[in-house]
């Protein structure tokens, strides 16, 4: 268990978007959080990474409570997330996007860099090299000097993951990674996520596409109206009466 969430609650004035959620993430797994629209999946993500501070509850990462300590902290500790929207730096080049993603790997101090210290130059070289490798792995190396906004939709999705991966996360949170992708691209994405898992990185994703979730994840958490209503292996979830009721008339399970 690398991440433990206890009693996490987020209220927006009258609305309780996330309601006393307890959950955990095991090292090396691929965990899915599913639920109908408005169930609070993205808000839960936002609270875990402090994009929004939670109203109550704790987010314990390797024994340390990081709840409400600013969005940069989660990333610095190794929890890196993607966004459903606004997930790139559109005006910057593909390579710059990835270099920014590598931010947390820069250890060299500001003055060292300004003074042109050798260690700072070496570090920059190493990170440039690592960024090139990430670009190669996500088939973006040929487009490295193009502005991110000029990429195709599928390429933008790959870049989004490349930005996260450049920071060498321990836990990668993906917010609807398959949204808007065609079946072929979805297949590619599944392969990509499995390769990420094979590198020893834990993955947690929010998704709508049931087929995608069932084929990929080892464990599923179901949210409805901010509450956790079920948790278990994909097969268990598919047969859970409460889950079927929530989704009734919605998406058919494969």
């Amino acid at each position: 268990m690398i991440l433990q969430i206890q009693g996490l609650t987020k209220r927006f004035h009258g609305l309780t978007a996330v309601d006393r959620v307890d959950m955990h993430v095991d090292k090396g797994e691929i965990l899915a959080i599913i639920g109908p629209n408005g169930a609070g999946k993205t808000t839960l993500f936002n609270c875990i990474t402090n994009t929004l501070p939670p109203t109550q509850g704790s987010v314990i990462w390797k024994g340390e409570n990081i709840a409400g300590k600013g969005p940069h902290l989660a990333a610095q500790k190794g929890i890196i997330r993607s966004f459903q929207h606004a997930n790139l730096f559109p005006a910057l080049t593909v390579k710059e996007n990835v270099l920014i993603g590598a931010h947390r790997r820069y250890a060299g101090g500001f003055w060292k860099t300004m003074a042109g210290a050798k260690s700072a130059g070496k570090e920059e070289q190493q990170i440039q090299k690592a960024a090139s490798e990430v670009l190669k792995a996500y088939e973006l190396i040929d487009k490295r000097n193009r502005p991110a906004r000029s990429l195709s939709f599928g390429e933008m999705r790959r870049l989004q993951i490349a930005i996260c991966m450049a920071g060498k996360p321990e836990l990668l949170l993906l917010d609807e990674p398959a949204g808007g992708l065609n079946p072929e691209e979805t297949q590619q994405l599944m392969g990509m996520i499995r390769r990420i898992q094979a590198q020893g990185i834990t993955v947690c994703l929010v998704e709508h596409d049931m087929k995608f979730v069932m084929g990929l994840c080892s464990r599923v958490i179901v949210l409805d109206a901010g509450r956790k209503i079920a948790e278990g292996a994909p097969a268990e979830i598919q047969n859970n009466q409460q889950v079927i009721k929530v989704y009734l008339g919605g998406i058919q399970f494969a």
Partner: protein
Amino acid sequence: MNKAILPYGILGILLIIIPFGMPNYYLHLMIMAGISSILALSLGLLVGYLGLVSFCQAAFYGIGAYTSALFTMHLHIPFWVSLPLSGLVAVFFGIIIGFPSLKTKGPYFSIMTLGFGQIMSLIFVNWVDLTRGSQGIPGIPSPGILELPLLGAISFKDKIPYYFLVLAILVITFFFMRKLLTCQLGRSLTAIRENEMLAGAVGIRAMKYKLIAFMISTFFAGLAGSLYAHYFRFISPVSFTVVQSFETLINVIFGGAALLIGPVVGSTLLTVIPEALRMASEYRNTIYAVILLLVILFLPGGIAGELKDRLLAKRPSEGGAP
């Protein structure tokens, strides 16, 4: 990189040769253009790289000028010490104003800085015991005489040495900023401007980087103020009003905020153009305004931005290289 050395070299040699034999009046213009270039560069860091439109750059310019004047006159601190000190005092005020105002965004940030700019110019006028109010402070010492090897004694009362002093500080400012913007700090600033939420998600603490940029900006504004004070050897609150902040902002945008050299180009042209228009004295302000409007309308990237686009358009092979 090697391609860039030649134009820099030519420009460098020109800047070194130019002052000799130049009439004092033109030399004065060059010095003024240099000082306002340093000020515009300091603002350009915020406007161009963070997208923060600050309206109080003249306040830090003024703080630098008053600090340096008062330190040298009352505490008898030599200019060479009070020059960096004036930058540091400006940074101190920069932290005080930067901390609350950088928490706001867009127009809210601009309005907060406008308020601070206004407060500072009122303080310059009304804290008579310290600043002598609107009478101003006369008799600020010039930097004095510097004994240099090979060159001998140099008096900064003369215009040519002062020109080189301003040029040296301008070059230091420029290359400091350039280094800054090409390292991870510069990338982080751009990331915050482009998408602050995503920047946070990859570990960039936006407030910290904004504050660092603001401190650097105020430091150089303070230096520019000190150079101004010891050049004119007289300062008064009129020079540091919000109008000066606006003028600096115009210099930045006229030259091109997206390029580091932009503020320098803008400041130089906008120092020279009004002087060149003196012969048409009656229409001077009108022509000046028309030029400004035309540039804003037709060259939204500023003069330097337009030049760069033109030069790059001639080299279509660019883009594929790593």
